[in-house]
């Protein structure tokens, strides 16, 4: 060390005062953090196939799956089945969301609505969607109607539960504010009830989109002649592992994409909230 460095004054501002405080928040978000886990999984799968640890009859290699997907796209089977599946899921999702939201509003805004609706919906929640299928088949046959109704039943419950919970947990101080400002009922619902219940509704939607794809798998693998589930079921009969995996990857992608869409909507709609994740 030389004399010059010794005489140079230390900039006081950069010296931390004492130990830095422990951060309780999880820290800065990792860019594309959501992709890290899936990519790692893919890497393990590829390595396993390349090294020959995975029998192609048990689990086809990623590149086989990609070529198979290419073939399926070339002969149009993938698009056709995907379109039909997406239509079923989308229709069930829309109808289920509307029903769930309307029921939640009825139950949340009126005591009678709650008394009449909440019990039966809680009972429905306790019955797995799968267990209802025999009855639905008897009632509606094995056509599109039964499929969309099954998906709708799977969707409306989480939408109802979370929206209703969101409504019930709106701070009564805001209700009092609405009363003190003599808000009309429509304004009260538009400015206080709906925005107050929005976080709950969006959480319900995240469960609902995943639920829609889950119900889709179930209805398409029984009594179906089209859709991704049917394509996979057929592949099972012919022992085509690669086609099954194409279907699985597709389901996974669809689930991820739709969940991502809801999360994006969440971020946009709830930008007023400051939470630990931000």
């Amino acid at each position, binding site marked *: 060390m030389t004399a010059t460095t010794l005489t140079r004054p230390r900039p006081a501002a950069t010296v931390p005062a004492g130990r830095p405080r422990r951060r309780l928040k999880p820290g800065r978000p990792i860019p594309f953090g959501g992709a890290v886990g899936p990519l790692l999984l893919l890497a393990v799968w590829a390595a396993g196939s390349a090294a020959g640890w995975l029998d192609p009859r048990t689990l086809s290699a990623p590149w086989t799956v990609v070529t198979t997907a290419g073939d399926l796209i070339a002969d149009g089977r993938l698009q056709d089945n995907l379109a039909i599946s997406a239509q079923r899921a989308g229709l069930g999702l829309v109808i289920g969301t509307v029903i769930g939201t309307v029921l939640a509003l009825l139950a949340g805004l009126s005591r009678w609505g709650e008394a009449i609706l909440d019990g039966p919906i809680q009972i429905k929640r306790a019955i797995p969607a799968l267990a209802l299928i025999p009855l639905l088949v008897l009632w509606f046959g094995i056509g599109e109607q039964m499929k969309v109704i099954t998906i709708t039943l799977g969707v409306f419950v989480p939408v109802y539960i979370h929206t209703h919970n969101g409504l019930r947990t709106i701070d009564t101080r805001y209700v009092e*504010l609405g009363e003190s*400002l003599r808000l009309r009922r429509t304004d009260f619902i538009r400015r*206080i009830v709906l925005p*107050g219940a929005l976080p709950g509704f969006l959480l319900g939607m995240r469960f609902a989109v995943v639920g829609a794809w889950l119900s889709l798998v179930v209805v398409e693998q029984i009594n179906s002649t089209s859709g991704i589930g049917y394509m996979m079921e057929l592949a099972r009969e012919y022992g085509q592992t690669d086609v099954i995996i194409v279907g699985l990857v597709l389901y996974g992608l669809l689930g991820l994409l739709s969940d991502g869409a809801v999360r994006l909507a969440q971020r946009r709609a709830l930008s*007023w909230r400051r939470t630990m994740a931000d």
Partner: protein
Amino acid sequence: MATHHGGLTATRTVRVQGLLRRFGERAVLDGFDLEIGAGEFVALLGRSGSGKSTLLRALAGLDGDVQGSGLVDVPENSSVVFQDARLLPWQRVLDNVLLGLRGPDAPQRGLAALAEVGLAGRERAWPNELSGGEQQRVALARALVSEPELLLADEPFGALDALTRLRMHGLLRELCARHRPTVLLVTHDVDEAITLADRVLLLDAGRIAVDVAIDLPAPRSHRQSQFLAYRETLLRALGVDPTEA
């Protein structure tokens, strides 16, 4: 609840007669009477739990689920300011001010009200981006934008620091001089009551124990001997030794 809401006379803004409010067996207000003249600024003092909020909520018509009876005669057009600013966190500042306001000129009026409380330019901010004092100023703008005949405020500055509170006193005085509403300000701060009000009431055991007109020239301060005399009277009535306060 057998409370009667009737019309009002020209010189009187508030009339309360034989008001009873009870929680379970305990009557918080019993045979309570009160009259407030038009344009009067009244401060209501009282120990914690003496029923100040109960009275204010009765006047605001916010106590529909409380047991009671009596006559409450207040103007239809009255506003409430709460101790917490009570802004809707999911609405921007301007939309909070416009809540419940109707008419084609509502946005202009909202902007003017925000400018009046010194928040011009913050209309697109979210409430949680504002400081406590700024939030309470938005609440004041929201209360006054409808040009209320009666302003009911329940410890509106209770949660603010001393310096911010002093600045809010100045602002409230200014706004009241301009809009001339009748004011009932609930507070536990004797100095705040004497500084702001034309008349100070002290609530004790469900009744008005002290009712004094404050006759002091502006600017009011501790340097006025009359100020200290009012202070001593009110503190004694609250059961506090003035030499210790």
